């Protein structure tokens, strides 16, 4: 690894030129800039550790800016996943000072200037390299949730839904799939062996989203999402300790609005003696 001794003059630290033509590039270094101490985990599946960096920080910057500055000036092969840098795509998930966060939405101003900022990859998933992890688990789970079933009697353009009926599912569709909830959920974070049986908050929320969709015809087609939530997706593993809600960058109330309602819906099916009795009788008569 190479370092540039005078990173102050390196790329990535210069003032930002204006989009507005004619504006002179900002060449003066603002007084608000300072040097921060970072510990960044570097390595791969064979091992690795935290590496120390001292790096310049300017006003208004987020942790991702600092990681980029490290790439441009000190560690050109530092692996990090990112995309939009605006909190909309959910790519730059990592753990900062031990907490699952988006690198692009964590402002440097939340840290003390002399505080060491520790950045590690997500710790619930296999590491690929540096800050990049293998999030394949989530894509596997996504495939296991049966898709939206369109109502057979409605063609394109004939769908009519009221705003109040789509509101709940719309909240869940705000999900940017950053997988921070999947990362923080102790069911899989602390118990690798549960990964097979448990879909994780993101995909239980997907089940809830479809079950609350005003026109989903899965039930008519013979698939009961409420029962499946428990039998196929491991809803029972969730002990509603709410870490998924705590880390959600979109502020989706995953636990209160998706997981608990889903638990109640599953209870409707499986733990309600009246419903149970009704089903028994119906089965006998048919």
């Amino acid at each position, binding site marked *: *690894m190479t370092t540039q001794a005078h990173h102050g003059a390196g*790329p*990535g630290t*210069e003032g*930002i*030129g204006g*989009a*507005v*033509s*004619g*504006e002179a*590039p900002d060449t003066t270094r603002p007084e608000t800039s300072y040097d921060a101490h970072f510990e960044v985990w570097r390595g791969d599946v064979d091992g690795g550790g935290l590496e120390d960096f001292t790096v310049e920080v*300017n006003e*208004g*910057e*987020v942790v991702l800016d600092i990681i980029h500055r490290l*790439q*441009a000036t000190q560690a*050109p*092969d530092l*692996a*990090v*996943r*990112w*995309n*939009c*840098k*605006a*909190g*909309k*795509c*959910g790519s730059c998930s990592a753990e900062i000072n031990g907490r699952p966060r988006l690198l692009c*939405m964590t*402002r440097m101003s939340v840290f003390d200037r002399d505080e060491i900022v520790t950045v590690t990859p997500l710790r619930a998933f296999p590491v*690929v390299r540096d800050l*990049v992890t*293998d*999030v394949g688990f989530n*894509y596997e789970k996504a*495939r296991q949730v049966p*898709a*939206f079933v*369109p109502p057979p009697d*409605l*063609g394109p*353009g004939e*769908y*009519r*839904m*009221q*705003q109040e009926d*789509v509101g709940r599912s*719309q909240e869940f*569709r*705000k*999900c940017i*799939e950053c997988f921070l909830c999947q990362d923080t959920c102790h069911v899989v974070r602390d118990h690798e062996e549960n990964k097979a049986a448990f879909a994780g908050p993101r995909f239980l929320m997907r089940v809830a989203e*479809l079950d609350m*969709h005003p026109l*989903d015809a899965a039930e008519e087609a013979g698939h009961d999402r409420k029962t499946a939530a428990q039998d196929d997706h491991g809803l029972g593993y969730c002990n509603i300790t709410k870490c998924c809600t705590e880390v959600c960058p979109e502020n989706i109330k995953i636990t209160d609005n998706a997981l608990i309602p889903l638990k109640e819906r599953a209870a409707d099916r499986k733990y309600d003696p009246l419903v149970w009795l009704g089903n028994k009788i119906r089965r006998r008569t048919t």
Partner: protein
Amino acid sequence: MAHVERQQWDVVIVGAGGAGLRAAIEAREQGLRTAVICKSLFGKAHTVMAEGGIAASMGNVNEGDNWQVHFRDTMRGGKFLNQWRMAELHAREAPERVWELETWGALFDRTPDGRISQRNFGGHEYPRLAHVGDRTGLELIRTLQQKVVSLQQEDFKESGDYEARIKVFQECTVTQILKEPGSEGEDRVSGVFCYERESGRFFVIEAPAVVLATGGIGKSFKVTSNSWEYTGDGHALALLAGASLINMEFVQFHPTGMVWPPSVKGILVTESVRGDGGVLRNSEGKRFMFDYVPDVFKEKYAESEQEADGWYEDPDNNRRPPELLPRDEVARAINAEVKAGRGSPHGGVFLDVSTRMSAETIKRRLPSMHHQFRELADVDITAEPMEVGPTCHYVMGGVDVDSDTAAARGVPGLFAAGEVAGGMHGSNRLGGNSLSDLLVFGRRAGLYAAEYARGCARERPRVADEQIDTAAAEALRPFGVGPAPADEETAGEAAEESAENPYAVHQDLQRAMNDLVGIIRREEEMSEALDRLAELRERARRAKVEGHRQFNPGWHLALDLRNMLLVSECVARAALNRTESRGGHTRDDHPEMDREWRRANLVCTLAAEGASGAEAETGRAGRIALRRREMPPIRKDLLELFEKEELIKYLTDEELTSE
């Protein structure tokens, strides 16, 4: 050369944004085995950044809307430079494409009678944008992603393999389109050469049809709303494969990007802010847009604040506010205000919704803007105005394609859809027309690529080993292990010269493009840009990276530089050549729109290599050849949708009398 894995698929889609996924769904539904290759994770494509909505003349909010009105708006927005057939297909098919999303599970905001709600947007005569708050792009990408998954679930039921007929190769990059040399010089596409970002492993997908859906080029500019993926890959791949690019001089600068703090400069502030009632003010508190309504739009826009405010409630008896002019006009106006010294403290202007809507309404209608400003700029948009300024947003130019089939002209088997395709939007794209463009032409590209691939079933094109070796060598060059593609003399030189940091080259490129080929252009500056690009090309050739091939961002950037440089040269050359101002192309030295230029497309191709490849690459001549091409005349029935008085402003007398 090490063994490179080969896979056989029927259709390859490069890019998994809106256009790519829509194409993939179509090709798969046509029964063909479809591979999707994308640089990011599945579902992270740049489409998620689209905020405002999908333009489609469903007429749910105003019954007066229909495809003809949408077509008219699109042509006006593009200053009549649009490929009119594309604009027509787009306007006709957009509603179907939106409705189809609902059958795949999309949940748009609703009207009181339960239909899809539609919102106002710049340049659209009626409320036309189907939306979900201000996160429509996310809804679009998620819906398409989930549709792909549902097709995979079908395949799994049938064959036990999710990826039997549609597979997403995520975090992979295509570096070359491979072609089989054909009989009469008609080389046809035979596949793509790719590497896995995660491992650095090379692989080849053999397929008779390749659909480019790689999006735009914004990462060549410093202040941009675009993500790192927007390195013009598809544009460059098409050029290198022998296709041509048109309209590359037209780059859209979105009028409202964030300007403060510096680290978020350029991040988009959705046009919905203005569509829903936000107004632009300068440092004197004046709504300056009233001073910037150009002649061609004079009749359509309000002249007083009172009239403009009345329009939100009563659009039939009031004209629309000038804040809702097409983007190019608003961006220029903001630029002019700042230059005149009436800008905000950080070099933008003020965009205010706080005095126009209740905090509750703002949070409901613009949730992600509220969130974005609160989190990134400490600004509460329900209480104070935003500071905004222009940001590079979209490229109107792209691969020269057949309007109906999305097939790239001159390269059998190559298709392009979405931002990477050119023509549809003319010189300036209307907000909301991008998402509908993705769906309409994504589907068409998938459909016709499938049809084409089916025709090749009996005799699939072959990929020769030497082609793979050459592609692999080029990809390895930044490590200094592969031979330079030029002759040995230059390779030796290169080794002696100092190695370049790819990040530094990239930043210099962004600065050059931003400062010299930005929103307002001058001849001298663009000539200088071409010189600088030549230097940068030279430096990029010496770019060297550390480490190994496993998830190495420095290496990835070094490879992307080739694409950015090619595309930047197209932009600069075309912009220098077009001596008028139109849409996304504004010349300080030629400020007027010229009717003669209306008929002309500037076409970029890869310059014929001279005596040796090295000369073409190192010489100041550049790598791009430019020629002017006449556009086909607009079909009569479409022309008749406009008033004669309006056409006079755009069309030459000759065109008007030729009927």
